[in-house]
């Protein structure tokens, strides 16, 4: 009989010690924890410094996406900045309802156009809200903090061993054929 | 004898090829005739110390022979493991037609029960002597066996109950 009382007191001692500790949870909607620099939550499409859309509509992300949530429609038109004719994404949708946040689309982007953002999408009442179209992806570039990772940084980090000279720049140039051995 | 990452012990290879006249396969573990199957597993367990039940993998190989004849074969790979330091795996495979069945290992390894049920469920290979051959993963009234190559990945399925 005695061990029950002693062990109860010992358990009580531990819980009481934790009463005095600072709570580890924060009250979520009002307070938010600081996310790591690489934290990946939502997506954004980027412009370059001159205001040109970076996405060239090459569909590399559409092809690699394991859960097939990205659809890209490409078109050729004249750039509003440089006036040169090049390919653009006409429509770009990313359905976050099924996205698994694997970062592969960021990894394969030849122009560093798609990156991830550090704030998660708010819970939504409609599935459509979680479906990001091109407009909202470009909005995210302005409104959301971006993660550290983009394609060229990832490739630099995963640089292959020295026997093959690192060709980060070459890789970045729309290496559509892949590196089949 | 070529399962990458699965180096079999020399004495087991000897046993397989000499006592059980296994055929060395270019792909995958040695091919054993179904009638040697149970005896092989018993020998490995009792004489060689392969006491931990490893895995059962059935794979469907439909093919067309040179004569234009369609063959529907299923290959079943079994694996057993030794205990303790320098643990080794022994594995062998059987090849049968889809309609025929493979002798079940349940009598030797109770763990084969669920594994063989799973392979029956997904690949549709029957195991002879299995006491309780029901579907394990899919509902009882499921039509077809999903891991067959003729089962398209986008097959329409009615919502379950």
């Amino acid at each position: 009989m005695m061990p029950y009382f002693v062990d109860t007191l010992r358990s009580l001692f531990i819980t009481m010690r934790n009463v005095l500790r600072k709570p580890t949870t924060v009250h979520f909607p009002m307070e938010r924890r600081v996310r790591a620099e690489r934290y990946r939550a939502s997506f954004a499409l980027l412009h370059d410094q001159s205001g040109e859309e970076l996405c060239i509509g090459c569909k590399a992300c559409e092809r690699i996406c394991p859960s097939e949530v990205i659809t890209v429609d490409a078109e050729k038109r004249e750039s509003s900045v440089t006036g040169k004719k090049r390919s653009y994404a006409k429509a770009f949708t990313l359905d976050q309802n099924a996205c698994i946040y694997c970062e592969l689309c960021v990894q394969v982007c030849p122009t560093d156009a798609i990156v991830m953002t550090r704030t998660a999408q708010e819970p939504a009442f409609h599935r459509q809200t979680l479906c990001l179209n091109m407009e909202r992806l470009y909005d995210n570039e302005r409104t959301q903090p971006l993660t550290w990772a983009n394609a060229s940084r990832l490739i630099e980090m995963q640089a292959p061993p020295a026997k093959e000279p690192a060709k980060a720049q070459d890789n970045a140039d729309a290496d559509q054929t892949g590196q089949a051995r | 004898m070529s399962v990458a990452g699965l180096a079999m012990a020399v004495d087991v290879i000897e046993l397989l090829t000499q006592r059980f006249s296994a055929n060395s396969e270019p792909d995958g573990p040695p091919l054993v005739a179904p009638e040697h199957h149970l005896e092989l597993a018993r020998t490995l367990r009792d004489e060689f110390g392969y006491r931990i039940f490893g895995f059962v993998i059935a794979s469907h190989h439909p093919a067309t022979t040179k004569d234009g004849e369609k063959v529907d074969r299923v290959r079943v790979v079994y694996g057993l493991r030794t205990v303790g330091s320098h643990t080794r795996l022994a594995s062998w495979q059987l090849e049968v037609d889809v309609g025929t069945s493979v002798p079940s290992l349940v009598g030797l390894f109770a763990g084969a029960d669920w594994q063989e049920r799973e392979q029956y469920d997904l690949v549709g290979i029957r195991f002879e002597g299995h006491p309780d051959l029901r579907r394990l993963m899919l509902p009882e009234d499921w039509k077809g066996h999903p891991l067959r190559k003729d089962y398209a990945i986008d097959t329409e399925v009615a919502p379950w109950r």
Partner: protein
Amino acid sequence: MEVEVASSAVSASREISANQRPVTNRSPAKTRRGDPYLDIAAYDPEADLMVLNLGPQHPSTHGVFRLKLYLDGELIVKAVPFCGYLHRGVEKLCEKLTYVQLVPIFDKNDYVSPMMNEQSLVMAFESLLGVEVPRRARYLRTLLAELQRIASHLLWFGAFAMDLGGALGGGSTLFMYCFRERELILDVFEELTGCRFHYNTHMIGGNRHDVPAGWAAKVHSAIDIIEHRLIEYENYLTTNRIYLDRTCGVGVVDADLAMELGITGPILRAAGIDHDLRRDAPYHAYDELEVRVTTDIAGDCEARTRVRLAEIRESVRLVRLMIDGIPEGPLGSRKPIKTNLAEKSERGHAYAAVESPRGELGIYVIGGGANRGASPYRLKIRSPSLHALSCLPYVLPGHVVSDAVAILGSVDPIMGEVDR
């Protein structure tokens, strides 16, 4: 503050464990095997037994798992497990997706230790494709695996306490403590990979994410806190008389039954078999480390807890050994992923197994599938949880419903991995 206490506290914890060994009989026990094929119609012609469906919607089935229990009063006569409620057809999906795309998918299998799933998959692919892994990546993988093992065992410990003590009671208190400590590891993972759970940090031939600056110090402080708090857990739960009453002699899985069923990992070690793939078939960088394997002889719920807590300590020790000495060098031996058809294999079989927190997690892959060889032809996951769960029809008969919940908790089933 916490960090300074840790080193002195370690020795104190060992003493507590040694002094507080339970007084019950700790001799190697035999499972009183129930008959999984018992014919209920013949056993109970009057239909007096009560059939209780434990699950699939039940708070302590760790997901969606159904146990059909034939009860005589509260005593279990026969237990029929049903799984597959979480079956997602990953093995079929493998026929469609390519080697590159499959890595993030496998995070979702065993959602408590995703790192191990990625590693086993990537290892199987590497042996199929004949890819070397640089030393730095092997070290990093070992480190991540050990951190993941700590996190996984912590989650299991909390959930097990909750099975014993209820969601509104002492069990949930320990659950919260374990989650608090596990959070430290997830923070470390977030720092490295950017995700707290579904990392996608491995690629064929190496790792995708390199160690950021100041990471080692964060890992140090995290594992120091965890090691210190483990003592609290021991004082709180595992030396508590009520806990010992609930777990000692309950759910004995003896060595013969475990091996016959293919159960590996902590359950096998708790039954007295000294078997650990990290030491016995070293992969990654484990051949350069000395892994101390803990075993127990009783094979009951208490022994399994003891083994798992010892494994947390061992992992903490290994992480401490490794964290400051990650070798320099390239992170991967292949070019970074640029397309989904990057890796191709025309033929061949490969098998790779890692010691996941639940046992031998093996991937058997047959090459030469769709997408001109960029997909596997057939991929099979040897899931340790499925093997572990198959002990239930043998172990449960003769126990009461409360014990059924405790036993189910102590085999640590992750339904995502069981059903795949």
